[in-house]
Protein backbone atom coordinates (compact mmCIF):
# COMPACT_ATOMS: atom_id res chain seq x y z
CA UNK A 1 0.00 0.00 0.00
CA UNK A 2 2.21 2.85 -1.21
CA UNK A 3 1.87 6.30 0.26
CA UNK A 4 1.94 9.02 -2.35
CA UNK A 5 4.14 11.96 -1.55
CA UNK A 6 2.17 14.97 -2.72
CA UNK A 7 3.56 18.42 -3.31
CA UNK A 8 7.13 18.73 -2.07
CA UNK A 9 7.07 15.45 -0.24
CA UNK A 10 5.17 16.91 2.67
CA UNK A 11 2.64 15.23 4.85
CA UNK A 12 0.49 12.43 3.47
CA UNK A 13 -2.59 10.68 4.67
CA UNK A 14 -1.54 7.95 7.07
CA UNK A 15 -2.33 4.32 6.40
CA UNK A 16 -5.73 3.24 7.68
CA UNK A 17 -5.98 3.41 11.47
CA UNK A 18 -8.63 0.73 11.39
CA UNK A 19 -10.63 -1.26 8.91
CA UNK A 20 -14.14 -2.62 9.35
CA UNK A 21 -15.92 -5.07 7.07
CA UNK A 22 -19.38 -5.02 5.54
CA UNK A 23 -20.73 -7.63 3.14
CA UNK A 24 -20.57 -5.66 -0.14
CA UNK A 25 -19.84 -2.30 -1.85
CA UNK A 26 -20.15 0.51 0.73
CA UNK A 27 -22.90 2.66 -0.76
CA UNK A 28 -23.20 5.30 1.92
CA UNK A 29 -21.46 6.77 4.97
CA UNK A 30 -22.78 9.26 7.49
CA UNK A 31 -20.81 10.74 10.35
CA UNK A 32 -22.66 11.86 13.47
CA UNK A 33 -22.26 15.51 14.46
CA UNK A 34 -19.00 15.85 16.40
CA UNK A 35 -17.45 13.00 14.43
CA UNK A 36 -17.43 10.32 17.14
CA UNK A 37 -19.71 7.84 15.35
CA UNK A 38 -19.98 6.80 11.73
CA UNK A 39 -22.79 4.87 10.10
CA UNK A 40 -21.90 2.76 7.06
CA UNK A 41 -24.25 0.81 4.79
CA UNK A 42 -23.59 -1.64 1.98
CA UNK A 43 -25.28 -2.96 -1.14
CA UNK A 44 -25.33 -6.29 0.65
CA UNK A 45 -28.02 -4.79 2.87
CA UNK A 46 -26.11 -4.59 6.15
CA UNK A 47 -25.30 -1.38 7.98
CA UNK A 48 -23.52 -0.63 11.22
CA UNK A 49 -22.64 2.24 13.51
CA UNK A 50 -18.91 2.36 14.21
CA UNK A 51 -16.85 4.21 16.81
CA UNK A 52 -14.89 6.47 14.48
CA UNK A 53 -11.75 6.38 16.66
CA UNK A 54 -11.49 2.63 17.13
CA UNK A 55 -13.63 1.09 14.39
CA UNK A 56 -15.57 -0.91 16.99
CA UNK A 57 -19.13 -1.80 15.99
CA UNK A 58 -21.36 0.16 18.37
CA UNK A 59 -24.66 -0.96 16.87
CA UNK A 60 -26.02 -3.05 14.01
CA UNK A 61 -28.75 -1.25 12.11
CA UNK A 62 -31.83 -2.98 10.65
CA UNK A 63 -31.05 -4.86 7.43
CA UNK A 64 -32.32 -3.61 4.07
CA UNK A 65 -32.50 -6.64 1.79
CA UNK A 66 -31.16 -5.75 -1.70
CA UNK A 67 -28.95 -3.01 -0.30
CA UNK A 68 -28.62 0.22 1.67
CA UNK A 69 -28.52 3.24 -0.64
CA UNK A 70 -28.62 6.29 1.63
CA UNK A 71 -27.79 7.24 5.22
CA UNK A 72 -28.14 10.45 7.24
CA UNK A 73 -27.61 11.40 10.88
CA UNK A 74 -29.98 13.93 12.35
CA UNK A 75 -28.10 17.18 13.12
CA UNK A 76 -28.71 16.65 16.86
CA UNK A 77 -27.10 13.21 16.57
CA UNK A 78 -30.09 11.39 18.06
CA UNK A 79 -31.27 9.37 15.06
CA UNK A 80 -29.66 7.80 12.00
CA UNK A 81 -31.89 7.23 8.98
CA UNK A 82 -31.22 4.60 6.32
CA UNK A 83 -32.90 4.21 2.94
CA UNK A 84 -32.79 0.95 1.00
CA UNK A 85 -33.43 -0.68 -2.30
CA UNK A 86 -36.25 -2.53 -0.52
CA UNK A 87 -38.25 0.72 -0.64
CA UNK A 88 -38.04 1.25 3.11
CA UNK A 89 -36.64 3.88 5.42
CA UNK A 90 -35.53 2.88 8.88
CA UNK A 91 -34.90 5.41 11.66
CA UNK A 92 -32.65 4.10 14.39
CA UNK A 93 -32.82 5.96 17.68
CA UNK A 94 -29.46 6.04 19.40
CA UNK A 95 -30.80 6.38 22.95
CA UNK A 96 -33.71 3.93 22.64
CA UNK A 97 -31.63 1.63 20.38
CA UNK A 98 -34.83 0.93 18.49
CA UNK A 99 -35.96 1.46 14.94
CA UNK A 100 -39.08 2.65 13.13
CA UNK A 101 -39.82 1.75 9.52
CA UNK A 102 -41.66 3.63 6.76
CA UNK A 103 -42.41 2.25 3.29
CA UNK A 104 -42.09 4.11 -0.01
CA UNK A 105 -43.04 3.10 -3.55
CA UNK A 106 -39.46 2.70 -4.86
CA UNK A 107 -35.77 2.56 -4.05
CA UNK A 108 -34.96 5.08 -1.32
CA UNK A 109 -32.04 6.84 -2.93
CA UNK A 110 -31.92 10.03 -0.88
CA UNK A 111 -32.66 10.90 2.76
CA UNK A 112 -32.16 14.33 4.37
CA UNK A 113 -32.86 15.78 7.80
CA UNK A 114 -34.38 19.19 8.39
CA UNK A 115 -31.88 21.50 10.14
CA UNK A 116 -33.91 21.34 13.40
CA UNK A 117 -33.69 17.49 13.39
CA UNK A 118 -37.47 17.17 13.61
CA UNK A 119 -38.23 15.93 10.10
CA UNK A 120 -36.65 13.49 7.68
CA UNK A 121 -37.34 13.72 3.94
CA UNK A 122 -36.98 10.48 2.01
CA UNK A 123 -37.23 10.04 -1.75
CA UNK A 124 -38.46 6.70 -3.09
CA UNK A 125 -39.79 6.23 -6.60
CA UNK A 126 -41.87 9.25 -7.57
CA UNK A 127 -42.71 10.09 -3.98
CA UNK A 128 -41.16 12.08 -1.14
CA UNK A 129 -42.21 11.12 2.37
CA UNK A 130 -41.67 13.48 5.29
CA UNK A 131 -41.28 11.58 8.54
CA UNK A 132 -40.78 12.56 12.17
CA UNK A 133 -37.72 11.32 14.04
CA UNK A 134 -40.06 8.81 15.72
CA UNK A 135 -41.16 7.35 12.39
CA UNK A 136 -44.56 9.01 12.00
CA UNK A 137 -45.40 10.08 8.44
CA UNK A 138 -46.21 13.81 8.35
CA UNK A 139 -46.87 14.06 4.63
CA UNK A 140 -46.44 12.22 1.36
CA UNK A 141 -45.66 14.26 -1.74
CA UNK A 142 -46.39 12.38 -4.93
CA UNK A 143 -47.27 13.50 -8.44
CA UNK A 144 -43.68 13.88 -9.56
CA UNK A 145 -43.29 13.24 -13.28
CA UNK A 146 -40.46 10.78 -12.73
CA UNK A 147 -38.23 9.24 -10.07
CA UNK A 148 -37.20 11.72 -7.38
CA UNK A 149 -33.43 11.49 -7.32
CA UNK A 150 -32.43 13.84 -4.52
CA UNK A 151 -33.90 15.82 -1.62
CA UNK A 152 -32.42 18.58 0.55
CA UNK A 153 -33.62 21.18 3.05
CA UNK A 154 -32.98 24.89 3.02
CA UNK A 155 -31.05 26.00 6.13
CA UNK A 156 -34.04 28.01 7.36
CA UNK A 157 -37.78 28.30 6.81
CA UNK A 158 -38.73 24.62 6.76
CA UNK A 159 -38.42 24.44 2.98
CA UNK A 160 -37.62 21.18 1.24
CA UNK A 161 -36.38 20.78 -2.34
CA UNK A 162 -37.08 17.60 -4.34
CA UNK A 163 -35.41 17.04 -7.71
CA UNK A 164 -36.44 14.86 -10.59
CA UNK A 165 -36.46 14.95 -14.37
CA UNK A 166 -37.96 18.29 -15.35
CA UNK A 167 -37.00 20.41 -12.36
CA UNK A 168 -37.14 21.01 -8.64
CA UNK A 169 -40.23 21.28 -6.47
CA UNK A 170 -40.29 23.13 -3.17
CA UNK A 171 -42.40 21.91 -0.26
CA UNK A 172 -43.11 23.32 3.18
CA UNK A 173 -44.38 20.13 4.81
CA UNK A 174 -44.88 21.44 8.36
CA UNK A 175 -46.99 24.46 7.44
CA UNK A 176 -48.18 24.25 3.85
CA UNK A 177 -49.35 20.69 3.32
CA UNK A 178 -48.59 18.27 0.52
CA UNK A 179 -48.71 20.48 -2.59
CA UNK A 180 -45.60 22.19 -3.90
CA UNK A 181 -45.23 25.83 -2.84
CA UNK A 182 -42.89 26.71 -5.71
CA UNK A 183 -41.04 25.14 -8.62
CA UNK A 184 -37.75 25.63 -10.42
CA UNK A 185 -38.45 24.12 -13.82
CA UNK A 186 -35.60 22.85 -15.95
CA UNK A 187 -35.92 20.47 -18.87
CA UNK A 188 -33.27 17.97 -17.97
CA UNK A 189 -32.43 15.01 -15.80
CA UNK A 190 -31.28 16.19 -12.35
CA UNK A 191 -29.23 13.61 -10.44
CA UNK A 192 -28.35 15.46 -7.23
CA UNK A 193 -29.14 18.72 -5.46
CA UNK A 194 -27.44 20.56 -2.58
CA UNK A 195 -28.24 23.90 -1.00
CA UNK A 196 -25.36 26.11 0.12
CA UNK A 197 -25.02 26.36 3.92
CA UNK A 198 -25.76 30.11 3.75
CA UNK A 199 -29.00 29.38 1.88
CA UNK A 200 -28.03 31.57 -1.06
CA UNK A 201 -27.72 28.90 -3.77
CA UNK A 202 -29.24 25.63 -4.81
CA UNK A 203 -26.89 23.56 -6.96
CA UNK A 204 -27.80 20.61 -9.16
CA UNK A 205 -25.68 17.95 -10.87
CA UNK A 206 -27.15 16.67 -14.11
CA UNK A 207 -27.13 13.74 -16.52
CA UNK A 208 -26.27 16.00 -19.49
CA UNK A 209 -22.76 16.78 -18.14
CA UNK A 210 -23.68 20.12 -16.61
CA UNK A 211 -24.21 21.51 -13.16
CA UNK A 212 -26.52 24.39 -12.39
CA UNK A 213 -27.00 26.91 -9.60
CA UNK A 214 -30.13 28.84 -8.79
CA UNK A 215 -29.81 32.00 -6.71
CA UNK A 216 -32.73 31.42 -4.41
CA UNK A 217 -33.52 35.08 -3.65
CA UNK A 218 -34.02 35.90 -7.35
CA UNK A 219 -34.77 32.51 -8.92
CA UNK A 220 -32.13 33.19 -11.56
CA UNK A 221 -30.09 30.24 -12.70
CA UNK A 222 -26.66 29.69 -14.21
CA UNK A 223 -25.45 26.71 -16.17
CA UNK A 224 -21.95 25.36 -15.54
CA UNK A 225 -20.60 23.23 -18.36
CA UNK A 226 -17.33 21.71 -19.51
CA UNK A 227 -17.58 18.48 -17.55
CA UNK A 228 -16.47 15.23 -19.20
CA UNK A 229 -19.50 13.22 -18.03
CA UNK A 230 -22.63 13.29 -15.89
CA UNK A 231 -22.49 15.00 -12.49
CA UNK A 232 -23.58 12.84 -9.57
CA UNK A 233 -21.59 14.36 -6.74
CA UNK A 234 -21.23 17.93 -5.54
CA UNK A 235 -20.36 19.55 -2.22
CA UNK A 236 -20.51 23.01 -0.68
CA UNK A 237 -17.66 24.50 1.32
CA UNK A 238 -18.93 25.04 4.88
CA UNK A 239 -19.55 28.78 4.45
CA UNK A 240 -21.17 28.31 1.04
CA UNK A 241 -18.48 30.23 -0.81
CA UNK A 242 -17.23 27.40 -3.00
CA UNK A 243 -19.02 24.62 -4.85
CA UNK A 244 -16.99 21.51 -5.71
CA UNK A 245 -18.37 19.37 -8.53
CA UNK A 246 -17.03 15.94 -9.49
CA UNK A 247 -17.34 14.48 -12.99
CA UNK A 248 -15.33 11.46 -14.08
CA UNK A 249 -11.71 12.01 -12.96
CA UNK A 250 -11.86 15.74 -12.34
CA UNK A 251 -13.25 18.18 -9.81
CA UNK A 252 -14.22 21.72 -10.72
CA UNK A 253 -14.47 24.27 -7.92
CA UNK A 254 -16.67 27.28 -8.58
CA UNK A 255 -16.39 30.41 -6.46
CA UNK A 256 -19.88 31.36 -5.41
CA UNK A 257 -19.11 34.14 -2.92
CA UNK A 258 -19.37 37.86 -3.73
CA UNK A 259 -21.05 38.44 -7.06
CA UNK A 260 -21.36 34.71 -7.73
CA UNK A 261 -19.92 32.37 -10.32
CA UNK A 262 -21.35 34.06 -13.42
CA UNK A 263 -18.66 34.63 -16.03
CA UNK A 264 -15.95 33.02 -13.90
CA UNK A 265 -13.79 29.98 -14.61
CA UNK A 266 -13.55 27.17 -12.09
CA UNK A 267 -10.41 25.73 -10.55
CA UNK A 268 -9.85 22.30 -12.10
CA UNK A 269 -8.44 19.69 -9.72
CA UNK A 270 -6.74 16.72 -11.35
CA UNK A 271 -4.99 13.76 -9.80
CA UNK A 272 -7.43 10.85 -10.00
CA UNK A 273 -6.96 8.39 -12.85
CA UNK A 274 -10.44 6.85 -12.68
CA UNK A 275 -13.94 8.09 -11.87
CA UNK A 276 -14.33 10.08 -8.66
CA UNK A 277 -17.05 8.42 -6.62
CA UNK A 278 -17.49 10.89 -3.77
CA UNK A 279 -16.26 14.15 -2.32
CA UNK A 280 -16.75 16.05 0.94
CA UNK A 281 -15.66 19.38 2.41
CA UNK A 282 -14.09 19.64 5.84
CA UNK A 283 -16.82 20.41 8.43
CA UNK A 284 -15.24 23.71 9.49
CA UNK A 285 -12.24 24.25 7.23
CA UNK A 286 -11.28 24.81 3.60
CA UNK A 287 -10.11 21.29 2.77
CA UNK A 288 -11.86 19.07 0.25
CA UNK A 289 -11.58 15.27 0.23
CA UNK A 290 -12.13 13.15 -2.87
CA UNK A 291 -12.11 9.38 -3.41
CA UNK A 292 -12.22 7.38 -6.62
CA UNK A 293 -12.30 4.05 -8.34
CA UNK A 294 -8.53 4.40 -8.72
CA UNK A 295 -8.29 3.72 -4.98
CA UNK A 296 -6.88 7.18 -4.26
CA UNK A 297 -8.07 9.31 -1.37
CA UNK A 298 -6.95 12.90 -1.91
CA UNK A 299 -7.22 16.06 0.16
CA UNK A 300 -7.17 19.43 -1.56
CA UNK A 301 -7.03 23.05 -0.55
CA UNK A 302 -8.63 24.35 -3.75
CA UNK A 303 -8.14 28.05 -3.06
CA UNK A 304 -4.37 27.59 -2.66
CA UNK A 305 -3.30 24.96 -5.15
CA UNK A 306 -4.53 22.65 -7.86
CA UNK A 307 -2.60 19.60 -6.69
CA UNK A 308 -3.67 17.59 -3.67
CA UNK A 309 -2.11 18.67 -0.39
CA UNK A 310 -2.30 15.05 0.71
CA UNK A 311 -3.07 11.76 -0.99
CA UNK A 312 -3.06 8.05 -0.35
CA UNK A 313 -3.33 5.17 -2.79
CA UNK A 314 -5.21 2.48 -0.90
CA UNK A 315 -5.06 -0.11 -3.67
CA UNK A 316 -8.82 -0.74 -3.48
CA UNK A 317 -11.52 1.14 -5.43
CA UNK A 318 -13.14 3.62 -3.06
CA UNK A 319 -16.87 4.33 -3.11
CA UNK A 320 -17.59 7.04 -0.54
CA UNK A 321 -15.95 9.43 1.90
CA UNK A 322 -16.91 11.50 4.95
CA UNK A 323 -15.02 13.65 7.43
CA UNK A 324 -14.89 12.45 11.03
CA UNK A 325 -14.15 15.85 12.52
CA UNK A 326 -11.67 18.15 10.78
CA UNK A 327 -8.63 15.86 10.87
CA UNK A 328 -9.75 12.39 9.87
CA UNK A 329 -11.52 10.79 6.95
CA UNK A 330 -13.66 7.72 6.81
CA UNK A 331 -13.81 6.03 3.42
CA UNK A 332 -15.85 3.12 2.11
CA UNK A 333 -14.51 0.69 -0.48
CA UNK A 334 -16.10 -1.11 -3.39
CA UNK A 335 -15.42 -4.47 -1.71
CA UNK A 336 -17.10 -3.69 1.57
CA UNK A 337 -14.40 -2.25 3.83
CA UNK A 338 -14.63 0.94 5.87
CA UNK A 339 -11.31 2.70 6.58
CA UNK A 340 -10.33 5.51 8.86
CA UNK A 341 -7.63 7.69 7.33
CA UNK A 342 -5.86 10.25 9.45
CA UNK A 343 -4.40 13.49 8.16
CA UNK A 344 -0.80 13.82 9.28
CA UNK A 345 0.71 17.03 10.64
CA UNK A 346 0.09 19.98 8.40
CA UNK A 347 -3.65 19.49 8.23
CA UNK A 348 -4.07 21.74 11.23
CA UNK A 349 -1.90 24.42 9.68
CA UNK A 350 -4.12 24.39 6.62
CA UNK A 351 -7.13 25.20 8.72
CA UNK A 352 -7.97 28.85 9.13
Amino acid at each position, binding site marked *: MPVLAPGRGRAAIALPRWRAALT*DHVASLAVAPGGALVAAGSLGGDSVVLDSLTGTVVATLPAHPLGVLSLAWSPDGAVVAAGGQDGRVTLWDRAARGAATVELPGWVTSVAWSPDSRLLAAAGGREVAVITAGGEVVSRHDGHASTV*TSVCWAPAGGRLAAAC*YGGIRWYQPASRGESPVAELPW*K*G*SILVVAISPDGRWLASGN*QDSTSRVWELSTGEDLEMSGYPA*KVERLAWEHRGRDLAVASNEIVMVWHCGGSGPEGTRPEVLETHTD*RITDLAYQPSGPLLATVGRDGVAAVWQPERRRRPVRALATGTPLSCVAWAGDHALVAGT*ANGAVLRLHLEAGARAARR
Partner: protein
Amino acid sequence: MNSGCICCTVRGDLIRILGNLMRRRDRFDHILVETTGLADPAPVAQTFFVDNEIATQLRLDAIVTLVDARHILHHLDEVKPQGVENEAVEQVAFADRIVVNRIDLVDEARLGVVEERLRAINAVAEIIRAERARVDLDRILGVGAFDLSTVHMLIDSEEAGPWGDDPRHSRLVFIGRNLDREQLTAGLRGCLAVAVTA
Protein backbone atom coordinates in the same frame (compact mmCIF):
# COMPACT_ATOMS: atom_id res chain seq x y z
CA MET B 1 -28.76 14.77 -24.83
CA ASN B 2 -31.82 15.77 -22.87
CA SER B 3 -34.16 17.40 -25.31
CA GLY B 4 -37.13 17.06 -23.04
CA CYS B 5 -38.70 13.81 -24.20
CA ILE B 6 -40.24 11.24 -21.92
CA CYS B 7 -37.62 8.73 -23.08
CA CYS B 8 -34.96 10.48 -21.01
CA THR B 9 -36.81 9.77 -17.79
CA VAL B 10 -37.00 6.08 -18.63
CA ARG B 11 -33.31 6.14 -19.38
CA GLY B 12 -32.53 7.73 -16.02
CA ASP B 13 -34.08 4.84 -14.13
CA LEU B 14 -32.34 2.29 -16.33
CA ILE B 15 -28.97 3.99 -15.74
CA ARG B 16 -29.53 3.91 -11.99
CA ILE B 17 -30.56 0.26 -12.03
CA LEU B 18 -27.66 -0.88 -14.23
CA GLY B 19 -25.18 1.25 -12.27
CA ASN B 20 -26.38 -0.28 -9.04
CA LEU B 21 -26.18 -3.85 -10.39
CA MET B 22 -22.59 -3.32 -11.56
CA ARG B 23 -21.45 -2.13 -8.13
CA ARG B 24 -22.35 -5.40 -6.47
CA ARG B 25 -19.80 -8.01 -5.54
CA ASP B 26 -21.53 -10.75 -7.53
CA ARG B 27 -20.94 -9.25 -10.95
CA PHE B 28 -23.22 -10.25 -13.76
CA ASP B 29 -22.19 -12.14 -16.89
CA HIS B 30 -25.25 -10.97 -18.79
CA ILE B 31 -28.13 -8.63 -18.07
CA LEU B 32 -31.39 -9.17 -19.90
CA VAL B 33 -33.52 -6.02 -20.15
CA GLU B 34 -37.12 -6.90 -20.92
CA THR B 35 -39.11 -3.88 -22.00
CA THR B 36 -42.88 -3.66 -22.22
CA GLY B 37 -44.52 -4.22 -25.56
CA LEU B 38 -45.14 -0.48 -25.71
CA ALA B 39 -41.53 0.57 -25.18
CA ASP B 40 -39.56 2.64 -27.64
CA PRO B 41 -36.29 0.70 -27.94
CA ALA B 42 -34.24 3.74 -28.96
CA PRO B 43 -33.67 5.28 -25.51
CA VAL B 44 -33.00 1.84 -24.05
CA ALA B 45 -30.28 1.19 -26.65
CA GLN B 46 -28.90 4.72 -26.27
CA THR B 47 -28.40 4.16 -22.55
CA PHE B 48 -25.49 1.89 -23.36
CA PHE B 49 -23.72 4.66 -25.29
CA VAL B 50 -24.60 8.02 -23.84
CA ASP B 51 -23.86 7.32 -20.18
CA ASN B 52 -20.13 7.09 -19.54
CA GLU B 53 -20.43 4.91 -16.43
CA ILE B 54 -22.61 2.36 -18.24
CA ALA B 55 -20.70 2.53 -21.54
CA THR B 56 -17.40 1.65 -19.87
CA GLN B 57 -18.82 -1.36 -18.04
CA LEU B 58 -21.44 -2.88 -20.29
CA ARG B 59 -21.71 -3.78 -23.96
CA LEU B 60 -25.04 -4.05 -25.72
CA ASP B 61 -25.13 -7.53 -27.22
CA ALA B 62 -28.32 -7.53 -29.28
CA ILE B 63 -31.86 -6.25 -29.46
CA VAL B 64 -34.21 -9.19 -29.75
CA THR B 65 -37.79 -8.53 -30.78
CA LEU B 66 -40.47 -11.17 -30.36
CA VAL B 67 -43.41 -10.82 -32.73
CA ASP B 68 -46.69 -12.69 -32.83
CA ALA B 69 -47.05 -14.14 -36.34
CA ARG B 70 -50.81 -13.93 -36.17
CA HIS B 71 -51.20 -10.34 -34.96
CA ILE B 72 -48.07 -8.46 -35.97
CA LEU B 73 -49.42 -7.08 -39.26
CA HIS B 74 -52.34 -5.55 -37.40
CA HIS B 75 -49.94 -3.82 -34.97
CA LEU B 76 -47.65 -2.64 -37.75
CA ASP B 77 -50.62 -1.13 -39.60
CA GLU B 78 -52.07 0.57 -36.57
CA VAL B 79 -52.41 4.31 -37.18
CA LYS B 80 -51.17 6.31 -34.21
CA PRO B 81 -52.09 9.87 -33.28
CA GLN B 82 -49.82 12.48 -34.82
CA GLY B 83 -46.45 12.67 -33.10
CA VAL B 84 -46.75 9.19 -31.56
CA GLU B 85 -44.44 6.46 -32.81
CA ASN B 86 -45.81 3.07 -33.77
CA GLU B 87 -43.94 1.01 -31.16
CA ALA B 88 -44.30 -2.22 -33.10
CA VAL B 89 -42.59 -0.68 -36.14
CA GLU B 90 -39.87 0.80 -33.91
CA GLN B 91 -39.24 -2.51 -32.19
CA VAL B 92 -38.94 -4.35 -35.50
CA ALA B 93 -36.76 -1.63 -37.00
CA PHE B 94 -34.33 -1.67 -34.07
CA ALA B 95 -34.05 -5.46 -33.84
CA ASP B 96 -30.89 -7.45 -34.43
CA ARG B 97 -32.88 -10.68 -34.13
CA ILE B 98 -36.61 -11.00 -34.82
CA VAL B 99 -38.27 -14.06 -33.33
CA VAL B 100 -41.47 -14.78 -35.27
CA ASN B 101 -43.50 -16.68 -32.71
CA ARG B 102 -46.67 -18.78 -32.89
CA ILE B 103 -45.94 -19.96 -36.40
CA ASP B 104 -48.22 -22.94 -35.70
CA LEU B 105 -51.20 -20.57 -35.79
CA VAL B 106 -50.66 -19.30 -39.33
CA ASP B 107 -50.19 -21.01 -42.68
CA GLU B 108 -47.04 -20.80 -44.78
CA ALA B 109 -48.50 -18.18 -47.13
CA ARG B 110 -49.36 -15.89 -44.25
CA LEU B 111 -45.92 -16.46 -42.74
CA GLY B 112 -44.37 -15.40 -46.04
CA VAL B 113 -46.38 -12.16 -46.02
CA VAL B 114 -45.36 -11.47 -42.41
CA GLU B 115 -41.67 -12.08 -43.07
CA GLU B 116 -41.72 -10.00 -46.22
CA ARG B 117 -43.26 -7.16 -44.28
CA LEU B 118 -40.65 -7.48 -41.50
CA ARG B 119 -37.88 -7.51 -44.12
CA ALA B 120 -39.25 -4.29 -45.60
CA ILE B 121 -38.87 -2.59 -42.23
CA ASN B 122 -35.62 -4.26 -41.24
CA ALA B 123 -33.54 -5.84 -43.97
CA VAL B 124 -30.60 -6.89 -41.81
CA ALA B 125 -32.02 -8.60 -38.72
CA GLU B 126 -31.96 -12.38 -38.64
CA ILE B 127 -35.47 -13.81 -38.57
CA ILE B 128 -35.97 -16.85 -36.35
CA ARG B 129 -39.19 -18.87 -36.49
CA ALA B 130 -40.56 -20.25 -33.23
CA GLU B 131 -43.45 -22.09 -31.64
CA ARG B 132 -44.31 -21.30 -28.03
CA ALA B 133 -41.29 -18.96 -28.07
CA ARG B 134 -38.91 -21.94 -28.06
CA VAL B 135 -35.63 -20.60 -29.42
CA ASP B 136 -32.08 -21.91 -29.19
CA LEU B 137 -30.59 -19.41 -26.73
CA ASP B 138 -27.28 -19.37 -28.59
CA ARG B 139 -29.08 -17.63 -31.46
CA ILE B 140 -30.26 -14.70 -29.33
CA LEU B 141 -27.85 -14.39 -26.36
CA GLY B 142 -24.14 -13.62 -26.57
CA VAL B 143 -24.39 -13.11 -30.32
CA GLY B 144 -22.57 -9.74 -30.52
CA ALA B 145 -25.08 -8.58 -33.07
CA PHE B 146 -25.51 -4.98 -32.06
CA ASP B 147 -23.57 -2.59 -34.25
CA LEU B 148 -23.42 1.04 -35.17
CA SER B 149 -26.15 0.73 -37.77
CA THR B 150 -28.65 0.70 -34.94
CA VAL B 151 -27.27 3.71 -33.12
CA HIS B 152 -29.50 6.23 -34.68
CA MET B 153 -31.34 9.08 -32.96
CA LEU B 154 -28.14 9.99 -31.17
CA ILE B 155 -27.67 13.15 -33.19
CA ASP B 156 -29.78 16.21 -33.14
CA SER B 157 -30.29 18.99 -35.65
CA GLU B 158 -32.09 22.28 -35.83
CA GLU B 159 -33.00 24.78 -38.47
CA ALA B 160 -30.31 27.38 -39.12
CA GLY B 161 -30.50 30.61 -41.10
CA PRO B 162 -30.85 30.83 -44.91
CA TRP B 163 -28.06 29.11 -46.83
CA GLY B 164 -27.21 32.29 -48.79
CA ASP B 165 -24.28 32.14 -51.19
CA ASP B 166 -22.34 29.47 -49.30
CA PRO B 167 -21.47 26.32 -51.25
CA ARG B 168 -24.17 23.64 -50.99
CA HIS B 169 -22.69 20.87 -48.89
CA SER B 170 -23.33 19.24 -45.53
CA ARG B 171 -20.68 17.92 -43.23
CA LEU B 172 -21.15 15.34 -40.51
CA VAL B 173 -18.39 15.03 -37.94
CA PHE B 174 -17.96 11.78 -35.99
CA ILE B 175 -15.84 11.83 -32.88
CA GLY B 176 -14.74 8.47 -31.54
CA ARG B 177 -12.09 5.80 -31.50
CA ASN B 178 -11.55 3.12 -34.17
CA LEU B 179 -14.36 4.36 -36.39
CA ASP B 180 -14.67 2.51 -39.67
CA ARG B 181 -15.07 5.18 -42.33
CA GLU B 182 -16.23 2.79 -45.03
CA GLN B 183 -18.79 1.18 -42.78
CA LEU B 184 -20.14 4.56 -41.71
CA THR B 185 -20.29 5.80 -45.26
CA ALA B 186 -22.06 2.66 -46.43
CA GLY B 187 -24.51 2.89 -43.54
CA LEU B 188 -25.33 6.52 -44.28
CA ARG B 189 -25.73 5.80 -47.97
CA GLY B 190 -28.18 3.08 -47.02
CA CYS B 191 -30.29 5.75 -45.31
CA LEU B 192 -30.51 7.98 -48.40
CA ALA B 193 -33.99 8.68 -49.64
CA VAL B 194 -34.69 7.18 -53.02
CA ALA B 195 -36.96 8.96 -55.49
CA VAL B 196 -40.07 6.93 -56.15
CA THR B 197 -40.88 6.68 -59.84
CA ALA B 198 -44.52 6.64 -60.70
